[in-house]
């Protein structure tokens, strides 16, 4: 009953915003259904979404509120705010205060310097990126000099990646033997100025090249898993593990660029992460089984439009652990590729797309074909599939989660 009253109250506020003068109201309604291609044909998701954008922009100020509701079977409702911020515009400076999505870098579908907004991975990498990147309460200042921008971001309270529940089909497979026990007691980062995050970026947009240089004093959005082996008191053999996730500080120095080479767009992005903790391959009962190392993460990509107006895009991504030691569980080099091909038909009413993530180390992949048809202005019907190949690795671990899905969306 309380929940119903709360939701009714929210609804009244939303309706009053719609009626408010000069506030533009846009959004969409979407029905999303995923069907696993396993023996039982379980549904991976049945979700209805109402996404609303309230915006007002004046000469010196602006505001935006982006509430959204996910509705699941049995009337299970989730009401969230993706963004809620105010803008202040000065001659050369813009200030944005509140919950906001902040997106950096030139990479597509890969997070290298794009580490300001935390990620929601409850459905792995399958949702639209607008839904994967969460808003974060922050103060952002942009100082403009022509087409150059100096950006400063202060995040007063850290928020990490949202992971799927342990009973979700998207929960990462733990390559550990025996009984696994979680202890989340060290996971909370206290909300204090000392624990806040700082990001800065200089970006330039020129005729020859666009580039960004960035630095972050942040937390690793993915917690380090401290692993404590549990030994059987009688046999003194390993009977399980106690996993204690904990967030740690990172320093990140990075940059990105994009430029045109005739018909091609060449993109690059890279960052040095210092202070990252990696797990060890052989568990020792006397340690946390972690080791601190710096690593490089970088990408090179090409976009090209070929015959019959087929748009192609390919990226090569490498993660390289510096001063590598053989006891580390991760490979010294982890190589990944992405490939995208798109083609539209019927005066841009029918869109076809194929996107592939490929992991070279484990020979695993996520293959994502989809077809979208614009039935009418703002009304689209999407049919797609997510096919996982391989047996281990980032994508191979989900090889039982092959699925087909549909998204029917009406934007207004």
């Amino acid at each position, binding site marked *: 009953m309380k929940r119903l009253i709360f939701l009714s109250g929210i609804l009244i506020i939303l309706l009053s915003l719609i009626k408010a003068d000069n506030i533009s109201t846009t959004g*969409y309604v979407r029905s999303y259904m995923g069907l696993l291609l396993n023996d039982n044909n379980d549904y991976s998701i049945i979700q209805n979404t109402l996404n609303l954008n309230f915006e007002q*922009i004046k000469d010196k100020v602006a505001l935006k509120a982006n509430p959204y509701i996910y509705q699941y079977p049995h009337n299970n409702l989730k009401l969230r705010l993706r963004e809620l911020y105010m803008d202040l515009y000065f001659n050369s400076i813009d200030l944005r205060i509140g919950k906001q999505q902040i997106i950096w870098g030139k990479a597509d579908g890969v997070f290298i310097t794009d580490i300001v907004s935390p990620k929601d991975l409850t459905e792995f990498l399958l949702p639209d990126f607008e839904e994967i990147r969460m808003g974060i309460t922050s103060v952002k200042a942009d100082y403009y000099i022509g087409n150059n921008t100096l950006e400063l971001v202060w995040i007063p309270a850290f928020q990490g990646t949202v992971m799927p529940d342990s009973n979700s089909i998207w929960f990462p497979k733990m390559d550990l033997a025996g009984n696994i026990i979680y202890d989340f007691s060290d996971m909370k980062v206290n909300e204090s100025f000392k624990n806040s995050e700082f990001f800065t970026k200089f970006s330039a947009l020129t005729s020859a090249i666009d580039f960004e240089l960035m630095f972050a004093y942040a937390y690793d959005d993915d917690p380090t898993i401290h692993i404590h082996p549990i030994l059987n008191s009688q046999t003194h053999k390993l009977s399980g593990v106690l996993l204690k996730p904990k967030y740690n500080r990172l320093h990140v120095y990075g940059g990105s660029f*994009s430029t045109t080479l005739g018909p091609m767009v060449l993109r690059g992005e890279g960052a040095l992460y210092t202070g990252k903790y990696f797990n060890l391959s052989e568990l020792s009962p006397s340690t946390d089984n972690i080791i601190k190392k710096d690593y490089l993460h970088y990408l090179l990509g090409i976009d090209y*439009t070929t015959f019959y107006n087929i748009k192609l895009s390919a990226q090569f991504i490498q993660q390289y652990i510096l001063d590598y030691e053989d006891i580390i569980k991760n490979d010294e080099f982890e190589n990944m590729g992405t490939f995208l091909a798109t083609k*539209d038909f019927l005066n841009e009413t029918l869109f076809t797309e194929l996107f592939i993530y490929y992991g070279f180390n484990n020979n695993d992949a996520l293959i994502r074909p989809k077809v979208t048809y614009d039935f009418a202005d703002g009304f*689209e019907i999407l049919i797609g599939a997510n096919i996982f190949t391989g047996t281990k690795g980032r994508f191979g671990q989900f090889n039982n989660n092959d699925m087909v899905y549909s998204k029917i*969306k009406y934007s207004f």
Partner: protein
Amino acid sequence: MKRTLNFLSVLFISIIISTTLFAQNKKLTGMEVMQKVYNRPTGKDMVSNLTMVLINSSGNERVREIKQYYKDFGKVEKKIMFFIKPADVRNTSFMNWSYDEPNKDDDQWIYLPALKKVKRISSDSKGDYFMGSDFTYDDLGDRKPEEDTHKILREEKFNGEDCYVIESIPKEEDYMYSKTITWVIKDKWIGLKKEFYDEDGELLKILNIKKYDKISGYWIILETQMHNVQTDHTTKMIMSNVVIDKGVKNNMFTERMMRRGIK
């Protein structure tokens, strides 16, 4: 001294008059006509609303609305477009910098609000269709006269206007059109009608100018219609709220404005 000055003045005026008369008598070439069309002054800056109505062979209509800003900076012309309708592309923006320098490609960026990213895109594919319409980027005025050879086929009256009829053949092999034929109004340098022929020489599209007007002293095309005769698809393009030479700010053509958008 005064006599010398008078003599020089008379000589100077005589040169001007004779040059003008010579120019009037001189027959223009096809290239000169198309350069006059390309270089027809349209103001130092312009703000306008653009509505595109896409009509398929069944008569179903789709509507796109854009707010666009243009400014001539001398050696570079900059344009920025903000997409207003349909709802699923709202807040998308597109920026183009076009250079006088020969052989220098345009620079283009697109801002996609869902990705919250300004992406550089290649301007090489000018044969791409603009937003699902029947207009390619080249059709919208990006194609420079030097890229084709032009020939005056004849002079004739069309829709009550004295016109040059110009045949233009692309220099580039395998271009999407084998030729175009344009009816150019003689004193206004407006292409009143244009026929586009495909690679096999078959008629592909017909462009008709439905409305043009003098705004702030410049001839401005306000309504056009492109009909693809092979697919029976039509695009109407209507320009409204045209404001010229009112001083569009330089900082309108920046990443800052692409992200901020207009409401």
